[in-house]
């Protein structure tokens, strides 16, 4: 409940200032600035190749922008390795599913709790003491998430053979296992039918409302975006073209031209 209160304070979790990212000649992002407030669902939309995924990659340190700064929790973030950023409790899912195919669902999710595992080598070697305790504690957390996502039945299945939709769900689970402060979702609902999308929306909303997790979401299904997002930022050709409440954005002529097309 404490976190919900914090959310009310409207403070800013992450501030992205003037970020520019280039790949050789390609400008993936140019001078993009926006912020993410605590406890909100922030959607990022834009046409294909606009630079949305690149934005997430910048946030979790996989790409280093040529220009611009990122402020996290009120502090300017120095240049960090992706795994160091994971320790700041920023977790994400990927556009092209990036699960560990050779591992079971359970192991995948336990990997998500990597940042909480600290037992030493010897303890692990003997499976005794801290290692065993830690394993059980973390397993409890993971089991809760498994229950929450209703994937109990596939706990021990290798993820490689799961259908696409379930894989997406497992990936969400893996991100949740990190108990993130900021959760980045890259097209979590691509390739799902309506019913599954509803389920997924439910999960996202629950995470957001009950755990108070801040979420940044990329999605192409406008229905989902309009229904879930608190605020939406629109990127086109690497530039921010709009930012605001869903309704504002939906009626923005620039956005309609660049992205939505006529029918929406």
């Amino acid at each position: 409940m404490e976190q919900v209160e914090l959310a009310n304070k409207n403070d800013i979790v992450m501030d992205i200032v003037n970020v520019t990212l280039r790949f050789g000649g390609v400008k993936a992002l140019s001078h993009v600035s926006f912020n993410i407030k605590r406890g909100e669902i922030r959607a990022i939309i834009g046409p294909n190749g606009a630079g949305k995924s690149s934005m997430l990659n910048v946030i979790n340190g996989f790409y280093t922008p040529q220009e611009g700064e990122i402020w996290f929790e009120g502090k300017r973030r120095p240049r960090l390795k992706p795994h160091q950023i994971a320790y700041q409790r920023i977790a994400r899912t990927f556009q092209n599913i990036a699960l560990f195919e050779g591992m079971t669902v359970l192991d995948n999710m336990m990997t998500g709790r990597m940042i909480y595992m600290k037992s030493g080598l010897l303890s692990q070697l003997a499976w005794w003491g801290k290692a065993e305790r830690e394993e059980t504690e973390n397993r409890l957390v993971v089991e809760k998430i498994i229950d929450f996502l209703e994937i109990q039945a596939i706990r021990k299945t290798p993820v490689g053979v799961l259908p696409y939709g379930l894989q997406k769900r497992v990936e969400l689970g893996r991100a949740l296992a990190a108990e993130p402060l900021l959760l980045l979702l890259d097209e979590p609902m691509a390739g799902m039918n309506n019913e599954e999308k509803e389920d997924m929306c439910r999960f996202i909303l629950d995470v957001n409302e009950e755990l108070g997790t801040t979420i940044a979401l990329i999605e192409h299904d406008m229905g989902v975006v309009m229904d879930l997002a608190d605020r939406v930022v629109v990127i086109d050709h690497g530039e921010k073209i709009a930012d605001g409440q869903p309704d504002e954005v939906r009626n923005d002529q620039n956005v309609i031209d660049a992205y939505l097309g006529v029918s929406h």
Partner: protein
Amino acid sequence: MQTLLFALEVSINGFMTGILYALVALGFVLIFKASGVFNYAQGVMVLFAALTLVGLQQGIVPFEHLINNLLGTSIHGFGWNMPTLLALLLTLLSMLLLAWLVERLILKHLVNQNPVILFMATIGLAYFLEGFGDLMWGADVKKLDIGIPVGISDTVEQATHEWFGYGFFIDRLDITASIVAALLVIGLTIFSQFSKTGRALRAVADDHQAALSVGISLRRIWVIVWSIAGLVALIAGIFWGTKSGVQFSLSLVALKALPVLMLGGLTSIPGAIVGGLLIGVGEKLFDFMIGSMIGGATENWFAYVVALVFLLFRPQGLFGEKIIERV
């Protein structure tokens, strides 16, 4: 000055050796480029090609030991000497047959598998060919002579003697090899970079399934590249065989080709040549200048260490395709 001339001579010799390495490396590159398969059997294919060539040329009865052992007969050779050209032709045919069989019996069943698995399969093939080649043609040393001139080139020696006052010793075999290798590389580069089949080869290496789905016949592609690799193996076999006689150890030239491959990049045909030259010259010079100070016999590891250090700066080798990392 004297040292410099020596060093130069060593470099030139290294240069030539490098080309011989590159000839073996080329076979690897071709197959890797076309199917993402790291063909460990390339070295044994070199041996096998050379064995077959000698065997045919000298009229050895295939499997004579086995036959004699099983049937108690004592067959010893057909007693003919096949004309070199015919023997070459027949060897080439058998390499094509080998390519076809490899596709039929192995690759076909391993479509869309992890590269490591395919790599292992080629190791299995290497084992098989090693035993098969020896069983078929006998394990004794055979002399390969198809009329390529060997020995020091007098012309070069005289010429350099006139220029520098010091005659360079260069093997005529190496000179021939360099010319052949250069032609081969030019031909293959053109083939793979500018032809439709060449493009298909690269597609197959990236994604078997997608290649299948656009109608590229994996099986045909495989037969084609393995045939070319067989041809390259034959050429390498001819030169190495002429150089050191044909016997089991010939297959170990593969080990010399691997660092060349890394340095040049696994997917680049010109890379194989450039890598070969660098390694050839490098290892000879190193062994020559520094090797004697630290106890010699550095050639085996030097090439690998150079390649390793180099890869630290360019993980895909000189001309290899960049490893794509994206999420």
